[in-house]
């Protein structure tokens, strides 16, 4: 099949005539949309304290990890180590923080994914 044949074939498409109620249907949808209340914005003011509460401990963990892994000496580890009475609490809290981190990451990912689709 040469270029002209293909051009001819693809250029000659069937023309679709809009159905009789098409304009009315579009205008009804437009009127409905115009009357609909504006979409509810994301409640940033309410969400920010919670997000900050989640981010600050995470930042502390990241900072601590970086400090521990970057300093080969014991000094930094000692500086960041907690009193022995707080060790079990810290152990539990670290799991909570990891869970929070996972939640935040999955929320951000799904949010981004949904906004890309919409």
């Amino acid at each position, binding site marked *: 099949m040469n270029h002209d044949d293909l051009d001819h074939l693809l250029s000659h498409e069937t023309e679709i005539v*809009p159905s009789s109620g098409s*304009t009315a249907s579009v205008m009804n949808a437009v009127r409905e949309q115009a009357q609909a209340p504006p979409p509810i914005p994301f409640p940033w003011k309410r969400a920010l304290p919670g997000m900050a509460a989640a981010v600050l401990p995470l930042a502390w963990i990241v900072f601590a990890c970086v400090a521990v892994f970057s300093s080969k000496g014991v000094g930094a580890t000692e500086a960041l180590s907690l009193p022995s009475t707080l060790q079990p609490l810290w152990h539990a809290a670290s799991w909570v923080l990891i869970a929070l981190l996972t939640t935040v990451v999955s929320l951000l990912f799904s949010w981004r994914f949904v906004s890309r*689709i919409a």
Partner: protein
Amino acid sequence: MSAAEDQADVDRVLAGNLEAFEGIVRRWQGPLINLAYRFCRDRGRAEEMAQEAFLRAFNALGQWRREAMFSTWLFSLATRLYCKQLRRIPIHSLSLDDIPESRNPERTDAGLEEEETARTLRRAPDALPPKYREPLLLYYFHELDVTAAAKNLGLPEGTLKARLSRGLDLLRAKLAQVSPVCQRKEA
């Protein structure tokens, strides 16, 4: 289709006259439905897609920058929407291998058969990857206007030409393999 009419209607809608949008719908529903039909090959779905495009346009009228023609802006918006929708819910696309073989070359209804084959061949771009299908659809919809197709897809003209060329090559190669009608024409 008048650019001045479009501009006047947009101004009236932005000033609060909702009914002025009907003028825009009347002028552009045919082209938008036809463009959607080329994407989805389903009349009902094409009308729904065009309706969605008009709704998006209505909501985004204030974002139309007047340096571009209203039609260019509207088609870009519709094209982006159609591409996105087709990627979310793909059409039941035709495999190029499904294109019918010539049943009997000596039949007297060869004209009918060729017409049927031509109809099927027009659907052949549906089997291409979106990257090549979309430039082809837009290029032929805009009657071989590379600039208009590139603007609608938001691609540089060079990129569109390259994809067009590659898409046509793929199509030609496939069609030559599967369609005896094509081979006969080539001979």
